[in-house]
C-alpha cells in the first residue's frame, strides 16, 4: 500500500522535537502509512508564517506561536508536546546571579533584559517580573534573536536574558550563566504545542490522528529507553549545531514533563461544554500575555483553536491507541 505524504515542521535541537527524529530513525511512520517530509525553522514565527504558503501540514512549535498562528492563519493546537516551564526563563550572568541571590527585585530593577519578544521565554520572564513585584516599565527590554543573545551574554554585553533550552544549557556550560527564574519558579505554565493547519486537519483528520499516534509512541518509548534516547538526542542536537553535556541532556528529561495519550486527554477534558480544561487555562494565560505585548489585538477564545478532536480519534482507533502507548 502506498504511503501518504505528510508535511511536518519543527524547530531543530529542541527537546520536544526529538520524537520526530526517533520515529524516523525507528521507521515508525510507515507503520501508520505516512511518508513524512520535514521542514525546520529557527523560530516559531517563520514557521507559522510558512503555513500560509502551505509549506507544512502538521508539526510542533512553541505555545506563543501556536496562539499567533491561530489568530493569523487558523492553525489548530491539537495536543501538547511537553511542559517546558522549567526550560524557559530568565538567565543571568554569574555576576547578575550573585546580585540576584541577595536581592532579586533590586538586581532586576532598571536593568536591561535581552529577550526574544513573543516567545515562550518572554512569557516566562514576564511572570518572573510579576513574581518579584516588578512592572514591565521597571526594566528595559531589548528584542533580539536567541543567537544574538547568546553572543551578548557570553561576551558580558548583556547580564540578563530571556532564553529557552537548550540555549540555556549552552550559556550555563560555556559562559557560566545561571537560570535565575524559570516559568516553573514563577508559576507560569509553558506548554509546547502540537499543531495542524486548520484546513488540512479538517480534510485529513485520520492523517492528523496517525501523526499524533506516532509522536506519542516516541515519548512512550523514550520513557523506558533513556540511554538509547540520549544517544539519539546527541545526534539530533548535533544536527542543529548544539553540543551540550550528557548531564544537561538528562536534565531535559528530568525537568520537562511529557504526557501520555491518557494524560493529554485528561488535560484537555472540558466539562459542561465550557472551555475550562487545564490546557484551556494555560492557553488563556498565554493569550492574555500576548494581548499585553500587543502581538494580538484581542484575546482569542481558546475553544476556537485548542481541540482534542484528533487525540480522541487516536483513542477511538484501537490500532493507533496501542501504538501511542507502545514502549517498543
Amino acid at each position: 500500500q502506498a504511503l501518504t505524504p505528510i508535511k511536518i515542521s519543527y524547530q531543530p535541537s529542541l527537546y520536544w522535537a526529538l520524537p520526530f527524529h526517533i520515529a524516523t530513525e525507528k521507521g515508525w511512520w510507515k507503520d501508520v502509512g505516512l511518508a513524512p517530509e520535514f521542514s525546520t525553522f529557527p523560530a516559531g514565527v517563520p514557521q507559522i508564517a510558512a503555513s500560509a504558503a502551505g509549506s507544512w501540514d502538521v508539526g510542533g512549535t512553541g505555545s506563543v506561536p501556536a496562539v499567533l498562528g491561530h489568530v493569523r492563519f487558523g492553525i489548530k493546537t491539537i495536543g501538547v508536546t511537553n511542559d517546558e516551564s522549567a526550560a524557559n526563563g530568565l538567565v543571568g550572568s554569574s555576576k547578575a546571579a550573585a546580585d540576584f541571590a541577595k536581592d532579586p527585585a533590586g538586581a532586576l530593577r532598571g536593568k536591561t533584559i535581552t529577550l526574544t519578544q513573543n516567545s515562550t521565554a518572554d512569557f516566562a520572564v514576564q511572570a518572573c517580573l510579576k513574581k518579584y513585584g516588578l512592572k514591565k516599565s521597571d526594566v528595559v527590554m531589548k528584542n533580539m534573536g536567541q543567537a544574538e543573545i547568546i553572543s551578548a551574554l557570553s561576551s558580558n554585553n548583556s547580564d540578563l536574558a530571556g532564553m529557552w533550552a537548550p540555549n540555556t544549557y549552552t550559556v550555563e556550560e560555556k559562559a557560566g550563566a545561571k537560570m535565575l527564574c524559570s516559568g516553573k519558579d514563577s508559576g507560569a505554565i509553558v506548554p509546547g504545542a502540537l499543531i495542524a493547519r486548520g484546513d488540512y486537519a479538517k480534510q485529513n483528520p485520520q492523517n492528523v490522528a496517525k501523526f499524533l499516534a506516532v509522536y506519542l509512541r516516541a515519548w512512550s518509548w523514550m520513557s523506558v529507553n533513556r540511554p538509547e534516547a540520549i544517544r539519539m538526542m546527541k545526534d539530533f542536537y548535533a544536527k542543529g549545531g548544539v553540543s551540550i553535556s550528557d548531564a544537561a541532556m538528562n536534565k531535559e528529561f528530568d525537568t520537562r514533563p511529557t504526557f501520555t495519550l491518557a494524560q493529554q486527554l485528561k488535560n484537555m477534558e472540558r466539562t459542561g461544554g465550557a472551555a475550562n480544561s487545564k490546557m484551556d487555562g494555560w492557553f488563556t494565560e498565554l493569550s492574555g500575555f500576548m494581548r499585553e505585548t500587543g502581538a494580538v489585538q484581542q484575546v482569542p477564545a481558546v475553544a476556537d483553536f485548542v481541540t482534542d478532536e484528533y487525540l480522541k480519534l487516536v483513542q477511538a482507533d484501537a490500532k493507533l491507541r496501542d501504538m501511542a502507548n507502545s514502549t517498543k
Partner: protein
Amino acid sequence: MVGLTQRKNHRRSVVGIATIVLLLIIWYLATTVTGWINPSRFPRPDEVLSAFTFIQTEGYGNGKLHQHVLHSLKLVAMGFAVAVGVGVPLGLLMGYSRRAEALINPAFLLLRPIPPLAWIPLAIVWLGLEDGSKILVIFVAAFVPSVINSYTGVRNIETPVMEAASMLGIKGWRMVTEVLLPGAMPMIFTGLRLSLQASWTTLVAAELIGALYGLGSILNQAAQDIFPAMILVAMAFVGICGASTTWLLGVLENHAMPWRKGRVAT
C-alpha cells in the same frame, strides 16, 4: 525611434505619479473587492493605513514613528559617515600609489566579501549592544563601494591630465586636493550613492542587535508579530528616507562640482 528621443522630466513625473496611483488602485481591488489576494498574505490598503495611524498615535515597538525614523537616520548617518571618512581616503590612496594598493589589497580582498549580516556576532562581542555595533555593521556594508569607487575614480583620471599635473610640477598634498580629489569626484559620488543605499539596506540587519528604536527594529518586531501591514509601513518609510537622503546627496553633488554644471547628470 522612441529610444532616440529626449526625455522630458515633467512628463516623466506625471507618468510616474499615474503609475503609482494605478498600482494603489490595483492593490485595493486585488485585496478587497475581487479577492484575488488573500489579505493574510498581503495586507489591504486600509490595514496599512490603520497600522500607520496606530504607530503614529499609540506607538509600536517602544515608540512612535518619528522616534524610529530619527533613530534610524542617526544610525545610517553615523555608519555612512564613518564608511565615507575611511573609505574615500583609502580608495584615493590605493588609486594613487601602486605600493599602497599592493600592500592594502590583501586585507581588503579577504574582508570585503563577508556579508554585513555575518559580522553581527563579532560586532556584538566587540562593541556590545549599543549603537557602536550597529554602526559597525552599517559601516561594513557602506565601506566597500566608497573604497572601490574612489579607487576607480583616481585610476580613471585621464592620463593627459595626470601628465599635465606632473609637467606643471605638482606633488604631494596639492596633488591630492587639487588633482586626485576633484578628478575622482564624479566616481566618488557614485560610490557615495551606493554606500548610502547599502547603509539603508543594512539597517534592518544592524537593528537585529537589540535595538529599542528604529525602522529596522519595527520591521523585525512586525515580522515577529506577523503584522504585514506594519511591515509595509516600515518598508515605506525606509524607502522614503532612502530616497530623500539620496536626493540630499544629489544636491550636495551639484554644489560640489561647479565645473559640471549644465552637463547631463548621470
